[in-house]
């Protein structure tokens, strides 16, 4: 799983441009399952288990990552952009940027020396930020990076501290890596998998994927905010690293069936797998689209806790990935045979 995460860290797959990542996933799973690509670009996979499933269970993880899209070039050669997905402007200033075509740039800022005191701690609007690729004028800039080109934080995947990993887009490359790993292994019951597009711009791919697969149950594998950092009171941390996957009961896009929440926690306990509640009503993910699809789908989300999510440095614990993988597999088997 970690080797695959490292490989994926080299790939830029901002929403709507997930193709390169999808190709890598296909290469990984091809010998182990059947697959198809739907009109939106979702990768839908069927994997045979040792036994036939009573219920259709779909696992889902999104391929896309947050980033930026180029909207305008100044005469002076600087590029203006919009964010794709939610990026806090606070983590976007003075950063290396890599575009999908390999061009590099940096997000610029006025030198702190020339700022008035009142400006020194003011967070700028995204619309006032710009990217410098070294171009001398708009023509040069656009020949290297045409309008609509997507970019994101520079590549990174590193082991960090004690048993942690750090890098960009662990949301949701972690979910992708977990699913690929399950597909490459032997499983108990038949399962469906959706590697989705456009999650970061409104969980759009998942809506189409869930319609096509029409599962009875869905397990969304995600990364979610962990605020277990200094100065944050414990009741505001949402979840903490090294306590296992966070199981959702409600977020901003889904009210989860409590029987699935209870079942996930029970399966974790019965199998000695670490798990924790996602102790906040915050965020949203593909489950928001999936549970409303077709005649309705019972969905649950298992998220690997991740600090500084949607920045160039997401931080997650390797042991939480392992726990999430174990819980996802056991829970899927349970639901398939329910």
């Amino acid at each position, binding site marked *: 799983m970690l080797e695959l995460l490292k490989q994926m860290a080299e790939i830029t797959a901002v929403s709507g441009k997930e193709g390169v990542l999808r190709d890598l996933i296909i290469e990984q799973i091809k010998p182990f399952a059947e697959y198809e690509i739907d009109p939106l670009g979702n990768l839908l996979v069927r994997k045979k288990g040792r036994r036939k499933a009573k219920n259709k269970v779909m696992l889902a993880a999104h391929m896309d990552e947050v980033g930026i899209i180029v909207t305008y070039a100044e005469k002076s050669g600087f590029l203006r952009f919009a964010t794709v997905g939610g990026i806090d402007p606070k*983590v976007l200033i*003075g950063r290396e940027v890599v575009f999908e075509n390999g061009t590099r740039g940096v997000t610029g800022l006025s*030198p702190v*020396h020339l700022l008035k005191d009142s400006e020194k701690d003011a967070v700028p609007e995204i619309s*006032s930020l710009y990217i410098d690729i*070294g171009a001398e004028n708009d023509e040069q800039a656009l020949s290297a990076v045409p309008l609509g080109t997507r970019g994101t934080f520079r590549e990174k995947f590193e082991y960090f*501290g004690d048993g942690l990993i750090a890098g960009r887009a662990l949301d949701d490359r972690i979910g992708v890596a977990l699913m690929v790993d399950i597909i490459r292994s032997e499983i108990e019951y038949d399962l469906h998998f959706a590697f989705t597009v456009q999650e970061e711009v409104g969980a759009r791919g998942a809506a189409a994927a869930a319609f096509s697969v029409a599962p009875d149950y869905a397990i969304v594998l995600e990364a979610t*905010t962990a605020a277990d*950092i200094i100065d944050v009171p414990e009741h505001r941390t949402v979840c903490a690293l090294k306590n296992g996957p966070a199981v959702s009961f409600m977020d901003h896009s889904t009210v989860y069936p409590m029987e699935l929440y209870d079942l996930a926690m029970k399966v974790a306990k019965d199998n000695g797998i670490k798990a924790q509640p996602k102790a906040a009503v915050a965020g949203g993910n593909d489950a928001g689209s999936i549970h409303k699809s077709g005649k309705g789908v019972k969905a649950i989300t298992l998220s690997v806790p991740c600090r*500084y999510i949607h920045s160039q440095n997401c931080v997650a614990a390797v042991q939480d990935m392992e726990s999430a993988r174990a819980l996802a597999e056991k829970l899927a088997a349970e639901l398939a045979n329910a």
Partner: protein
Amino acid sequence: MDIKNILEKLISSKGVSGNEALAANTAAEILADYMPTEIQSSGNVVGFLDGEGPIIMLEAHLDQIGLIVTDIDKSGFIRFAKCGGADMRVLPAADVTIVGKDGVEIDGIVISTPPHLAKDEDKKKFKQIEDLAIDVGLCYEDALKVIRPGDRVTYKKAFGSLMNNRLYGTSFDDRAGVAAVLKAVDLLKGQKLNCKLCVLFAALEETTGGGAAVGAFAHQPDESISVDVSFAESPGVPEHKTGKLGSGAMIGIAPTLDDEISGKLIKIARTKKIKYQTEVMGGQTSTNADKISVAGRGVKTGLISIPLRNMHSAVEVLQLDDVEAVAQLLAEYVLSKGVM
């Protein structure tokens, strides 16, 4: 000498103000190929090439801005203060390196509070330095083993190429100045000089200016030229306060600088067709030139700057042609025996 290679080598060695040893070793090693060189107790690197005539000193500062560890919290997170003019706007979720005990480097990430925890008014403001911390992914006991208060912290090294011979990276302020001086020394190799040449790579510019003050006093040059970086044009910055990338060496003109030196630099740039632009300041220059000019009995001092965008961030941007132009101008100036 390939100036891009030299620059990358120089920025790869860390040296936050007051703890310049790694950067000093790298700079001294290169300089020693050209002249007798020593690292002094002040932290300065000094090279001296004896000869006939006045002493001309070329100076650039070795140190870089950064942070300094103030406390290791029971949670394992590291509290810090600024060490030089670090910009808090670039800190959330930034990659940093702590140079810990025995020079061991530890990766860290500055914390960034998730937006869902921020009140509306907090969303519009960056946190103050004292409310930030560094995540090293270690528990208190393990962090204590490798980190102690006083350890310096830098942005993690970044280095890459942009269009038009431009580069981005960390600590071009002032390793680009050091690179320009080294390149000038390289250009002078084998040439007959009618002066003594002193090279000073000064410690402590970003905090106290102490390195330049004691360095200039110790060697009491007849004249000195400092090389530092200055602001290059970018959106939102007034044009009259900035130079332009690619328009060459920025020759300083200021009440605190020696007018004769400024004039001669301009004359040389014109006759030798070296790209230059002028930078006029109304008082002090906020560079080591301010310290050197009043060292000992006083030193005639000039200033040449390299235009730089995003100063004091991890992604400073420069154009290599400008660094080359500064090197050429310095070399021609020394060959002309200055103004003495």
